[in-house]
């Protein structure tokens, strides 16, 4: 029974992020900056499923930009999907449109049946940050989690 359990939980959803660092560098209060170190994009998530089931890519801020007791509102931190490679699914809001991150998982991509049979789907992103006019100086860091899941 234990062996059967292991077999059924074999991961059919796989996701790889080619670059997991995002450094906006030094910014002034009130400044906006967009980061795409690879020219057209900053990094790429490669999603693969062999489950023959619709999957969803979501993102959430698990730790907002923080320095001591100060935070930058997550709504000021934004993502843009710039391409989906071989993907035939739907980008929530469309390609090249920018949306704010949230602390709750936000839908980014819904797979097409053709995406669910082992094709690697390369979803490329760029990111932007709007520093509020009233923001304490310091070194802020935060974490974003990408989630590939079969429930909406």
């Amino acid at each position, binding site marked *: *029974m234990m062996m*059967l*359990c292991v077999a*059924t*939980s074999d*991961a*059919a*959803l*796989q*996701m*790889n*992020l080619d670059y*997991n*660092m*995002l*450094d*906006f*560098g*030094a*910014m*002034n*209060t009130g400044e906006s900056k967009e980061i795409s170190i690879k020219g057209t994009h900053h*990094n790429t*998530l490669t*999603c693969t499923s062999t*489950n023959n089931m619709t999957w969803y890519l979501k993102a959430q801020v*698990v730790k907002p*930009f923080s*320095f*001591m007791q*100060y935070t*930058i509102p997550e709504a000021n*931190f934004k993502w843009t999907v710039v391409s989906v490679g071989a993907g035939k699914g739907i980008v929530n809001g469309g390609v090249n449109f920018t949306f704010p991150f949230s602390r709750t998982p936000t839908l980014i991509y819904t797979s097409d049946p053709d995406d669910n049979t082992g094709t690697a789907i390369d979803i490329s992103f760029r*990111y932007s*940050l709007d*520093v*509020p*006019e*009233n*923001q*304490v*100086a*310091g*070194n*802020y*860091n*935060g*974490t*974003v*989690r*990408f*989630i*590939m*899941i*079969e*429930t909406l």
Partner: protein
Amino acid sequence: MNMKRSAVVAIMALSAVIFVSGSTAEQATQDMYATVTINKVFSMVLDNALIDFGYAQPGDTIELKTSSYYNEVKCQANKGTTWHLKIAVMGTITGPDGNPVAPEIFKWQVFDSTGDGDPVKDWTPFSATPKVAYTSGQSDMAGREALVRFKYKLDLPKDATGGNYRVRVLYTMTDNP
């Protein structure tokens, strides 16, 4: 009989495992780590540096802009620490006759401010030593712009010389109390 019961229990357990496994959605996650350095701001802008009381007779009290403020200082800081706006007379004040005049005959007060700090709203005599006119509040020290608006008054003693009086004022924004 016991073997049969054991087999039934085993099948039920296996079914439960398959059911649980099948009902749990698969997911994969990846984290991305983001950083930014917010630069420091510590700035002050004065809109009108000339404080001219015009002609005053001995014994006169002249208040500039009686129902409003005369000038304003725009302060902005985001160090997250308390700052102070101080005010002092700059250099030696000489009267119309060329003789030194005591700075105390000139007075200032904070008319109002847009910040959440603590303004000095009483008439206060000038001195050569900077005096605190405004102490920042929580929002002021987190980067919000604060406008501090001043009024000025001249109390010319009866034994002073009549004439034109003006004063040069030094404004200092500092995080030293």
